[in-house]
């Protein structure tokens, strides 16, 4: 009896230690990032850093403006979501409502496989296939905003599909039954009842996908072109925040290095805001569901 208790408390302590460790890790990374990046703002104003597009860290009078990369990140991510959301949502709905058990299983395992492919493989696929397809369709060199967006769309789709499917599946049965009982068709039920009811969950999935897209580095590095210029055309080259960090990291020193950490801070804040939004959306979806069940 005593031994069981001892074992239990040991297991508890270990689980607590693991949880504690992950919190400490996040904390240390945050502190490290800010400590390494903030000193830049003694030399360059925050305004200039965020709103200038002159990135010439090794010039005689260095310029540390990352506006082009912020615009690049959002342009690529936005376009990727524009492609991935409709498709992902459609697949999610299909899997939750329309497909049979067997086909749903097949789709699910292929989507999971899609999520498991390393990003460098996506990048290679991008260089060989996507860049040439996008060159034929949209012109330019093929290393462009649109190529990067297509790759990111494929990479974020599994997240969107999964979350959309799960949030539709987890809706109370009564919603669907009630709608059908009132004489609505299956299609009307999906579009008018199920999707609106699951919207918070779906939004959370989209934002999760967005987080993945903004943070993705290697695949976009291989197809984006990586020129440090303001993206002006969809078939023109782009450099995102993550690409900027990885390109310059290997040789940057002094203020240049600090500016890369500062770029990391900007990225960190974006992701933080996105995650908070996800949590809010999920919270809302839970209260909605509880409210629905109570009524």
């Amino acid at each position, binding site marked *: 009896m005593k031994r069981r208790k001892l074992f239990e408390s040991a297991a508890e302590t270990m689980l607590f230690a693991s949880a504690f460790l992950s919190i400490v890790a996040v904390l240390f990374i945050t502190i490290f990032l800010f400590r390494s990046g903030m000193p830049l703002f003694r030399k360059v104003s925050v305004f200039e850093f965020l709103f200038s597009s002159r990135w010439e860290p090794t010039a005689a009078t260095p310029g540390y403006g990352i506006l082009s990369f912020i615009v690049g990140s959002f342009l690529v991510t936005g376009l990727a979501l524009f492609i991935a959301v409709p498709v992902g949502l459609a697949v999610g709905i299909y899997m939750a409502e329309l497909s049979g058990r067997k086909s749903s299983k097949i789709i699910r395992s292929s989507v999971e496989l899609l999520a498991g492919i390393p990003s460098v493989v996506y990048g290679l696929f991008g260089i060989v296939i996507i*860049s040439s397809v996008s*060159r034929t369709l949209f012109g330019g*060199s093929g290393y462009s905003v649109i190529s990067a967006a297509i790759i990111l769309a494929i990479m974020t789709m599994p997240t969107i599909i999964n979350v959309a499917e799960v949030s539709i599946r987890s809706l109370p049965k009564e919603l669907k039954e009630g709608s059908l009982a009132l004489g609505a068709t299956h299609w009307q039920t999906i579009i008018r009842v199920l999707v609106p009811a699951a919207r918070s969950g779906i939004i959370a999935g989209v934002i999760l996908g967005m987080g993945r897209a903004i943070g993705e580095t290697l695949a976009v*590095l*291989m197809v984006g*072109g*990586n020129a440090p210029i303001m993206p002006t055309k969809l078939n023109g080259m782009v450099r995102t925040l993550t690409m900027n960090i990885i*390109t310059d990291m290997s*040789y940057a020193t002094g203020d240049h290095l600090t500016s890369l950490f500062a770029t990391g801070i900007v990225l960190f804040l974006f992701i933080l805001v996105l995650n908070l939004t996800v949590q809010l959306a999920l919270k809302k979806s839970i209260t909605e569901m509880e409210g629905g069940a109570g009524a």
Partner: protein
Amino acid sequence: MKKIASIIALTLAATGAFAQYSGNYTFGGSTTVAPIAYPAIEQFQKDNPGVKISYEAVGSGAGLKALLAGQFSLSGSSAEYDAAALKGAVATPIALDGLSVIINKKDTGIKNISMADLAKIYHGDITNWKQVGGKDKPIVVVNRDESSGTYASFWELVCQKPFGKAVAYTRNAIVTKENGEVAIKVLSTPGSIGYVGMAFAQEVIKAGGLELAIDKVMPTTANIVARKYPIARSLFLITRSAPVQGSVEKAFIDFVLSPRGQSIVKSADYIPLPVK
């Protein structure tokens, strides 16, 4: 215990590496030489466990200055200095550095380019193949990132004369991180141009790319050794006086010139010195 000691002794004997040199040394100089210097030093220190060497990549000019001022005991250089600049110091060539210009066969339509036109392409003044006698298609410029020694070499050898010392490549270029990435992007993009270490160009040609002649001279080892091919230069190690037998500096230079050292040269994408 005895066994271990004898094994260690045997290994040392086999590599011929009895610790005959010792002490701390500071080398420094060219960033282009650094990719040779770092692995060579690592190997040299393994052979001579008593020796600690550091190499500071400060550039050829600053390296020579520090050598003459006594801060470095050996400096690496990618520039060839005359006797007046060397002030009695001695430069020993250790490798050749040649760059090949490669293009995609599609949408380009040239086989030769002049140095002046090449410089204009990378400065951003020429943007269509028509302007250099090719097809009426836009030029897709592929460049390296700033960390690469090749990036600096190419500017120095090609663009510095018309456009000045400060690097000012066109910003409208694909930025790549490796020779291999240049190759894959040039091979997959019609109308593109890039530059790689000469050793690497063979791979590109095998995969269907085209190596350009510069001012009608092809980049071959023979042409580089004969100083006919313009985008090439020698790399040197400089000592304050003729290398003294028995000094670490002399031993290091000998190591770099040995077959093992020259294979390091090769794996750093430079051209080993021709065997006499």
